[in-house]
């Protein structure tokens, strides 16, 4: 098996290679399911492309985090869960695709990035940091690794209640260095929680390459120390991703406890849009783009071995764009949050905290136009009115 060794110091210089000689068979996925995988991968990519446009128009309030080149690992792994059974996953910042599979909508994503008042977090949290336990995804926080113990607890509850449910938690290569990762995966292993830990090895944690993150030969080897199965697969082959994750999900559902799955992929954009990727060896990104793009590979597979007409895929592409257009229009019309909503919902009881004395009768500094123009996302008319005033 040709591999892009996780810790290979020369990893940056080697050509992008596929981690499996043979493409995944995708178990017994139906034609419709294979097309659904394509839909979610295309939706992920196109939605992020739309977000780039909105970001450049300063309509995205904070940073923008791309999963370009990682759509197969996000979508294929989430697809291995059974939504009808109530399986739950916890996404990371590159798992937009996983959230879409679980039922997050483009409208929610757009409102969230644009900090709208009717976004899933009512403007409290950024980007794709939100959850919907009813639909089977739990919102992440920025502290990497922390979701592993949390998902160990989610799946512990499945075990205690003897429910036929499985959990999946995503971590990156960087998060495997945290204490929370270690404590959480060990806890889940000891308790035989029905948990799949997916390590998305995309080559970099912000700017730090994997060989500076760990001396382990492969990240899947970490499973040995926890006494659980560890498997590694080509993260850019959606069917291989589905297959390897599905095996781990099935083990968990059979009561065999936790597994670790390493998906080898590549982060083609920077940590966020602002990141110029100066630390990436010349030509590396281009090689992955031209030789190992997960969407291109899947299109080849679908139109080749699966004998699906290119026109059918183009119909899906058009549908995706229509959906994103409609969602964008609606998100742009969404209101910004009412400032004093900031004081609501810290606790169940009391339901709201009192405004501080110097804010009584005033909603916020925004209302008195105290934002400096240098904050970047200000409304020029408001700024002008303030200067004139």
């Amino acid at each position, binding site marked *: 098996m040709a591999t892009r060794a996780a810790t290979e110091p020369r990893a940056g210089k080697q050509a992008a290679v596929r981690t499996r000689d043979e493409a995944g068979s995708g178990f017994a996925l139906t034609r419709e399911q294979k097309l659904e995988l394509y839909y979610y991968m295309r939706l992920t990519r196109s939605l992020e492309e739309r977000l780039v446009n909105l970001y450049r128009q300063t309509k995205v309030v904070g940073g923008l985090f791309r999963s370009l080149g990682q759509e197969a690992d996000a979508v294929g792994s989430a697809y291995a869960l059974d939504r009808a059974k109530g399986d739950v996953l916890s996404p990371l910042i590159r798992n937009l695709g996983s959230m879409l599979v679980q039922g997050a909508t483009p409208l929610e994503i757009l409102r969230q990035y644009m900090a709208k008042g009717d976004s899933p977090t009512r403007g409290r949290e950024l980007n794709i940091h939100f959850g919907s336990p009813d639909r089977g995804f739990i919102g992440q926080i920025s502290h990497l690794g922390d979701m592993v*113990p*949390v998902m160990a*607890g989610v799946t512990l509850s499945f075990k205690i209640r003897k429910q036929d449910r499985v959990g999946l938690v995503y971590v990156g290569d960087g998060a495997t260095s945290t204490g929370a990762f270690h404590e*959480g995966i060990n806890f889940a292993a000891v308790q035989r929680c029905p948990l799949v830990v997916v390590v998305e090895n995309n080559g970099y944690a912000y700017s730090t390459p994997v060989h500076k993150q760990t001396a382990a030969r492969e990240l899947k080897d970490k499973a040995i120390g926890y006494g659980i199965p560890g498997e590694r697969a080509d993260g850019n082959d959606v069917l291989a991703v589905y297959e390897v994750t599905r095996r781990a999900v099935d083990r968990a559902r059979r009561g065999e406890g936790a597994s670790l799955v390493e998906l080898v992929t590549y982060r083609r954009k920077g940590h966020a849009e602002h990141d110029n990727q100066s630390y990436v060896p010349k030509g590396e990104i281009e090689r992955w783009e031209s030789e190992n793009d997960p969407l291109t590979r899947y299109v080849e597979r679908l139109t080749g071995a699966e004998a699906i007409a290119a026109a059918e895929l183009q119909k899906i592409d058009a549908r995706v764009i229509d959906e994103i257009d409609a969602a964008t229009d609606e998100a742009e019309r969404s209101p910004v949050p009412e400032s004093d909503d900031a004081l609501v919902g810290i606790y169940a009881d009391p339901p709201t905290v009192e405004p501080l004395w110097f804010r009584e009768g005033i909603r916020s500094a925004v209302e008195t136009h105290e934002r400096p123009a240098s904050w970047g996302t200000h409304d020029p008319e408001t700024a002008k009115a303030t200067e004139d005033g």
Partner: protein
Amino acid sequence: MAEITYLEGIRQALFEEMERDSNVLCLGEDIGAYGGAFKVTDGLMAKFGEDRVIDTPVSEAAIVGAAAGAAHMGMRPVCEMQFIDFISCGYDILTNYVATARYRAMLPCPMVVRGPSGGYVRGGPFHSQNPEAAFLHTPGLKIVYPATVSDAKGLLKSAIRDDDCVLYFEHKYLYRRIKEEVPEGDHLVPIGKARTAREGTDVSVISYAATLYKVLEAAEQCEKEDGLSVEVIDLRTLLPLDDEAIIATVKKTNRVLIVHEDTRTGGIAGEITARINELAFEWLDAPVLRITAADVPLPYAPSLEDYVLPQTADIVRGIRRLAAY
């Protein structure tokens, strides 16, 4: 009605709540088969089984994180920190994940983190801490610290039923030293309400946990020796603070001493002082004074520990100084 100890009050609360609600479970190190380092959970595993009384690895972050995950799914986990000193190992998940869950993600996180706290026991720097102030600064958490057996039981039961995360500090010096008859039946003590431990009119002393007993001793002494009528407020809940009770006692006596076992700088006494300043400055006849531990890690040797921690004589001195204004 039989008298029970503070520790038995905690244990009764756990038994009763686990009996009442099958969603309640306990997680912690050595709490199951062994019954806990202080035997607080003794008998729990025999009654409720290994699924609901879980002996965990030495992993405070995982204990707290797993509790949060289970809580999201509708369970009501009670985590034991073997000593509350080790809660710092779960600080990240508690403050960043748990405390923000409802606000940032509308995710309920009903859970309790409890553990033996406090000094006067020759436990040294890592088995005597009072880390409550480290969490006081975190919106989204609640903090209780009972001083009596009834409150130990009633506050734990309320904490388990609360829909948010409650840090429940239990003072290990009090575990087997105080005994009380506890009201029969489903005894609940509301979170967020202080208690007047002693009525008085000349000076108010606000305190909580083990130092409350030193305050009561000092109040007796000042009454006997100086003829002073000292009011004593037992906070019981530290977050949210019972502003109403604090301000009521300020208006009654116009002189306030705050006593806590935690260190001085950044301790809760400073916060209470600031609130009195903001809400009742014109009612004061004297500056608000603090009696606290010195700003040092808690030392082991009795002569050192006794010097660092507040003692009855210190409190008497504080009361007399206030009365002299």
